[in-house]
Every structure is written in structure tokens, then in C-alpha cells.
């Protein structure tokens, strides 16, 4: 039994302009102690997947089918009270913008300790003591002084640490971090990633890290899922996916970003075209219109997510045994 398992999850957003299939048949799992990265561009469905797990979808969103099993129990049928309990104790989520996630009218220590009062019946004094210990754990200096302060005096990095501390209060077994470092400067990003790495190693907590930054994934994730147009297009161990991507989207993405350790200044190889319009998705493979490897079949039929070499990929070309690298060199 996996810690968390998604089985063919579909989430729709009903908007004025029509229905968007934001998450369209997503399946994956994560075990204790693992760090799983979910990468994709805006609109790829990565955040909607996380919000589906947490059942924190916007009012226009609904899980229409599929199962989300946490420790073997399907959460899609749970009542709001039961979900509340899981969110407070078992699964925590941290967001991109820590400033908007902290309540400005309560002292930070109170907010961080509050889940213990609600879910564990701990009194206020003990919850503040726990908050001090958590602040120390996430590297907030002067923890005793800081717990009495309000969020507005915290810098961006400190707020994100406080958010992480809040997530850790009840020692959850799963942490979902949605772009936790995107709003932060690189030196602060490095601090937060180091913190997540250490927490993962020391506590055995599983982490789902949602990001658009492939460098962050390379540094911290054991496995990675690549999403495009609401679908998983590639999934595998991080080393495999980066060493020999088997979906042309992953392949193109890795070639399009400038690398700090690149020797010579050669032109970047961008992905042509625009991200897909979720209201008017193409037939067949959703990446087909932008894909340099596309064959006739790609526009006609959508491929399944199948084993290609060491990982899973949703691509007719690589499933037929073609190597993307050789094919690109030849072309």
C-alpha cells in the first residue's frame, strides 16, 4: 500500500466560457520518505492536482471521477469534517506566497501552534512552546522573540519558514509544497530547499514539490512527473528523466533553458508555438502541434502513458522505439 495513490483522477473547472478538464486522468503514487516533483507550465494542471488531493479546489472545480487514496482510504468521498481532520494532521500544504497564507492579525507563534490546539487538545501555553521549537527547527533565529511578532515584520524567506513550521506542527506524513520558492530570491531559495532536504531526511516525511523550475527538481526530487495540458506526459526517476527524456515536451524543455554551467554561448532552442488553449485542445497528442518529432498518428490518436526504457512516457514516437536524441541528430 502506498502512502498516497491517485488513480485516474479527473477534475473539471466549470467556467463561463465552458468546462476545462484541468486534471484529465492523472495517476501516480508516493511513499514515505520520498520527494516527488511535479513540473509543468501555468495551466498544465499541476496545482489543480495538488488542490484536488487537498480538496481545496475553487468553487468552480469538482473531482468528477477517479480515486485519491491516502493510507488506503479513498478521500474523494469523505465529508468536509473528515477532510478537515486529515488536512490538520496528516497532509500539510504550503503555498507560493507565504505572505498571503499567514493571517496578518494573529501573532505568528499562535498561528503555528494553533493546529495543536484544534487537533491535539493542547493548551495555548504548550502550543506556543511547540511553535518556538518548530521555529528553531526551520531555522528562524530568535525564536522566542519571533513567535510574539506579527507576520508583517517577517521577510519573505522568514514567512516561508513560518509557513513550513505551520505545516510541520502536527508532524504530517505528507507535505505538499506548491512553488514554495518561486517568490523568493535565489540565496533564500537555496536556504529553503536545504531545509526541505533536511526535514525529508530526518523525519521520513513524504514531499510533493510542485514547481516550474527543472533545476530545483534536479537537486531535490527522487522521482518526477511532467504534466502538460492536464495530463501526465512523463514520469520516472529524476536521473532517468533528465538523462534521457522520453517525451518530446520534456526533451524540448530541457534544451530550451539556459544553463549556468554551459560553456559556450549558443542560441537557445525554444519550443515553438504557444502553450495549449485548454478550451480548444487539439485532437490526438496535446503536444503534437508544437512537437518537432510528430508523425501522422500523433494528430489522430492520443497515446497512453506507457513504459519506455526506464520510465513512463505518453508518446507514439518513443513507444515505437525511436530515440529522440538520434532522431534529432539525424534531422
Amino acid at each position, binding site marked *: 500500500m502506498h502512502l498516497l495513490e491517485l488513480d485516474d483522477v479527473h477534475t473539471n473547472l466549470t467556467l463561463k466560457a465552458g468546462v476545462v478538464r484541468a486534471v484529465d486522468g492523472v495517476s501516480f503514487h508516493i511513499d514515505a520518505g520520498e520527494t516527488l516533483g511535479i513540473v509543468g*507550465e*501555468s495551466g498544465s494542471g499541476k496545482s489543480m492536482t495538488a488542490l484536488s488531493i487537498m480538496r481545496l479546489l475553487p468553487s468552480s472545480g469538482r473531482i468528477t471521477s477517479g480515486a485519491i487514496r491516502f493510507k488506503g482510504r479513498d478521500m474523494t468521498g469523505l465529508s468536509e469534517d473528515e477532510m478537515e481532520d486529515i488536512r490538520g494532521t496528516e497532509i500539510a500544504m504550503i503555498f507560493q506566497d507565504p505572505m498571503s497564507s499567514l493571517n496578518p492579525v494573529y501573532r505568528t507563534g499562535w498561528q503555528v501552534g494553533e493546529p495543536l490546539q484544534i487537533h491535539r487538545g493542547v493548551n495555548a501555553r504548550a502550543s506556543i512552546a511547540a511553535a518556538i521549537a518548530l521555529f528553531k527547527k526551520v531555522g528562524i*533565529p530568535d525564536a522566542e522573540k519571533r513567535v510574539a511578532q506579527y507576520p508583517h515584520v517577517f*521577510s*519573505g*524567506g*522568514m514567512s516561508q519558514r513560518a509557513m513550513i513550521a505551520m505545516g510541520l506542527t502536527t508532524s504530517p506524513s505528507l507535505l505538499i509544497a506548491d512553488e514554495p520558492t518561486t517568490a523568493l*530570491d*535565489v*540565496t*533564500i*531559495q*537555496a*536556504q529553503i*530547499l*536545504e531545509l526541505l532536504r533536511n526535514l525529508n531526511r530526518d523525519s521520513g516525511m513524504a514531499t510533493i514539490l510542485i514547481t*516550474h*523550475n*527543472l*533545476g*530545483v*527538481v*534536479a*537537486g531535490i526530487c527522487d522521482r518526477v512527473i511532467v504534466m502538460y495540458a492536464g495530463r501526465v506526459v512523463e514520469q520516472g526517476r*529524476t*536521473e532517468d528523466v*533528465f*538523462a534521457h527524456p522520453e517525451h518530446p515536451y520534456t526533451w*524540448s*524543455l*530541457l534544451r*530550451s*533553458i*539556459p*544553463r*549556468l*554551467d*554551459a560553456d559556450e*554561448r549558443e*542560441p*537557445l*532552442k*525554444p*519550443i*515553438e508555438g*504557444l*502553450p495549449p488553449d485548454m478550451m480548444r485542445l487539439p485532437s490526438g497528442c496535446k503536444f503534437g502541434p508544437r512537437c518537432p518529432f510528430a508523425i501522422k498518428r500523433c494528430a489522430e490518436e492520443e497515446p497512453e502513458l506507457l513504459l519506455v526504457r526506464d520510465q513512463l512516457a505518453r508518446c507514439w514516437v518513443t513507444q515505437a522505439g525511436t530515440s529522440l536524441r538520434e532522431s534529432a541528430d539525424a534531422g
Partner: protein
Amino acid sequence: MPAEALRERSASTWTAAAPILEIRGLTTWFPVRSGVLARTVGQVRAVDGVNLSIRQGETLGLVGESGCGKSTLGRSILRLVEPTAGEVVFKGRDVLRMGPAAMRRMRREMAIIFQDPFASLDPRQTVGDILAEPLEIHHLRRTRRQRQERVRELLDLVGLSPDFSGRYPHEFSGGQRQRIGIARALAVDPSFIVCDEPVSALDVSIQAQIINLLERLQDQFNLTYLFIAHDLSVVKHISDHIAVMYVGKVVEISTAKELYQRPLHPYTGSLLSAIPIPDPAVERNRERIILKGDVASPVNPPSGCRFRTRCFKAQPRCAESEPPLETVRLGDHLAACYFPLE
């Protein structure tokens, strides 16, 4: 002859062999006001005595963390914010001492591309109007027909269909809007463009398209760029030289390649080591310098070297006096540090 015209005449001595832009002692402070009388209680030293120069046709990258003053520096050069002191010498003439008429002519030479293509385009104007406006203001095309012709040409230059001129900004994606922003900057046929985080708001797959476009336009029109960004991988890719800023000061400057291979300032070293590289084999075996603490305040910067409060090499001397940029000089590689990296 009015003084301004005299200065303008003497400026014709500039030749392309000299830097197209030279910044000397540029300082931009913003007052911090407080109380009912809004009395000035302090100064935000956003840009605090910066010297830089750029040669024609080159790209100078400017990197640093949020609040370091890099955007204010870009805007001060164009006088979109008024600097407190210093000189901005463009093609031999000090922009900061120009009167309104000369400044108006100067604005045809210098343009800016903003980070957020959503906020920087007027939603009520069509793309054609947005691009024709600078042509009208500067009397660059007399008739409506000539302006329309130029608008089509500009759209074509940035890789958009000339038929888009009747559409509104909201009809475009982020990448397309940034192309419109670039077309607007090109409208007046400038020689120098400040690119202020031009790709940070774009999706990863679109960033490369825009970077390639900027590089192609630079070759085509011999443009000079000041490229401001916090993403050092992007800056290293596009820049000839890179200046690193920390709390209002330039702390290191060198060629892009040399800066990456041999950073001298501890801040540059930690900045480089903090940037994730999209390769697990490299990323997991890198030595990282994890800095402690947060960026210092530009209102009350630390005495001496402003980085010393986070620096792993700081000594008592660093608090006593501020190291000038020329403290370490290896050819054209300069660093403001008493105890540089090996």
C-alpha cells in the same frame, strides 16, 4: 546661442570607439516619510554611487536580489526616476543635465522593456495604436498611412502577424504581449534598450523564444542592452559583461564567462552556487554556499562592506571601511572585497 544647443554641438565628439553609456557616481535615494507632516526620517539608498560603462552593441547584465536597486538603476539612466546625484553620459552627453527639449530628443535613443507585459500595455488601445503612439509623439512618421506601414513592419520584426494591429492586448498570450512590448521599444529606432526582467513573468518554454528574439534584434540593429534580471543563468547566456549588485552598490563586474568561472566576491560566489542546475548528476554533487540571514536594509545599510552581515569570510576590517570596486583588479575584472575568493 542657448547653453543647451552649445552643449549639444560639443557632444558630436563622441565616436563608437568610446563606451556608448558611462555612468559615474550614480545615486538615487528615496525619502522615507513618517508622521502627519510627512517629515523625512530617512533615506532608502536604492542606488548608491554606481560606476558602469557599456560599449555599443554589447549587453551588460545586471544581477542581484530583490531590493538591491537594479531596477531603480535602469530607470535612473532613463530618468524615469530622477537620480539624486551622478552622471549618465550617453554618446558623450550627460543625460541628467539635459533640458526638456534635448531630453525629448534623447528619448528616441533610449527605450525600455518591462517585466510585466500585462501591466505595461494599455488595455483600451489596439496594438496598432500602442505602436503608433511613439511615432506620433516623436513625429517620426507624418501620415497615418506611413505610421500604419511602420506598425506592420514592427510587428513583423518581432515575429507577430502584421494583421494583429487591430487587436487588443488581452487577446494575446504572455509571450506575444512581451513581443508587443519589444516592438513598442523598437518603434523609435533606439540604440540603447533597458530590458528590465523581460522574461521573468513568462512560461519556461516561451522564455527562450524571447531571448532569441532579443539577440537577433541586437545583431540586426547593433543595439546596446542593459539586461536586468535575477536569473543568473539567463543573464550569463545573453550578456558580454555582468555587474553584480548588492544593496545599492556594484560589488563585482567582469566578463560573463570569467564571472562564472572565477567569482571573486563572496556574494557572487554564493549567488552562483545557489542557482539550481537542471542536471541531477551535477546538482547533487555541487558545493553550496548557503548564506545566513536576509538581505541588509538599504535604509540603514551596515557600516563598511554591506555584505559583511551575511558573509562567511568577513573580518573586523570589513566593518571599518567600505571596499571600493577596484579593491581587486584582474584585468577588467573588478571586485569590492578585502578578502576575495581564491
